[in-house]
């Protein structure tokens, strides 16, 4: 591949592009709902000015839908902003549950297109890790992408962060089709080149149907 090709297909850029494409598509959907419901308000207002009286409750319902979609779009933009800021520091202390919630939100559309849901299980105490925030998010996203492929329609993928003796771990599962997934899909180039960067490893437990990301203490 040429240097320009390598630059364009750098796995970090592909990851960034995927996240932004998915989130902006969702924002477009929210804007489309706002557009149609605002259009209905205008249609009914025109009818009123022509002497036809639609039920006033209808206006309340339509306005409520618009407000809900504005909140939805605002949340999506907030998540994109948080994600973009993960590049600010090469090394920082992050709380894993917050990162998992962010990723679950950013992956929502990708998961729902495969008929799968994502749930972050709460921890009793905060689970902190000192690491590269962007690389960690990239690895966690690759795990979520794999988990979605290894899940069946209707499955709920649980994300669970825990403290361990040597660092932290994140579980992804249960995954109904994990046993059938060929090893090559798991040991893909993108995850193999990223894992060692922040001293992480992945274990696939086919018996329990879970994959576990193991994070050791990381210093630059």
């Amino acid at each position, binding site marked *: 591949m040429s240097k320009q090709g390598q630059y364009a297909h750098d796995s970090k850029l592909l990851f960034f592009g995927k996240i932004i494409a998915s989130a902006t598509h969702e924002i477009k959907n929210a804007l*489309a709902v706002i557009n149609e419901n605002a259009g209905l308000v205008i249609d009914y207002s025109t*009818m009123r000015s022509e002497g036809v009286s639609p039920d006033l409750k209808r206006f309340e319902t339509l306005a409520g839908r618009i407000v809900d*979609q504005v909140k939805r779009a605002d949340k999506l933009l907030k998540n994109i902003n948080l994600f973009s800021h993960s590049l600010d520091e090469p090394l920082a202390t992050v709380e894993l549950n917050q990162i998992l919630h962010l990723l679950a939100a950013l992956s929502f559309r990708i998961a729902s297109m495969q008929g799968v849901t994502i749930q972050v299980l709460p921890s009793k105490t905060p689970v902190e890790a000192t690491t590269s925030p962007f690389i960690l998010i990239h690895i966690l996203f690759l795990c979520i992408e794999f988990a979605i492929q290894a899940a069946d329609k209707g499955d709920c993928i649980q994300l669970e962060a825990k403290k361990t003796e040597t660092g932290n771990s994140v579980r992804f599962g249960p995954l109904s089709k994990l046993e059938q997934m060929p090893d090559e899909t798991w040991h893909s180039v993108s995850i193999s080149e990223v894992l060692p960067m922040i001293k992480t490893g992945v274990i696939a437990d086919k018996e329990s149907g879970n994959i576990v990301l193991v994070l050791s203490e990381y210093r630059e």
Partner: protein
Amino acid sequence: MDATVLVVDDEIEFAQALAERLQLRRYNASACYGGKDAIEIIKHGAIDVVILDLMMPDMDGIETLKKIKEVKPLTEVIMLSGKATLKTAIEGMEQGAFEYLTKPCDNDLMIGKITEASLRKRKQEDRIRRAMEEIEGIILKNR
């Protein structure tokens, strides 16, 4: 205009609002929220124009479009998407879509396309009916 329009989108509040706006403009419009439901409705009903979302979880827009063209080839399909890639637009047109619009869509533009699509369907139906009448005429003449 009394064309029958089916809005197909997994965003329920979008599909419902668009169908309602079309009803206010005297279209016989309804909404459903997935490709499989859409196919069933189209199989058993007389739908002139389908407004079809591209990205749906149960059956994506292109797959749904192919099925629609299998069961009711004359039904016109206007594809609708928040995704702005040329590739999906081309694929849709190659599979027989009447038009490809992006969300959010200007209402006047949408109405214009629905009118054009339903007129095209009527013209196709008229052509087929005249051709059938001509064939029947030839058969009767040769008896």
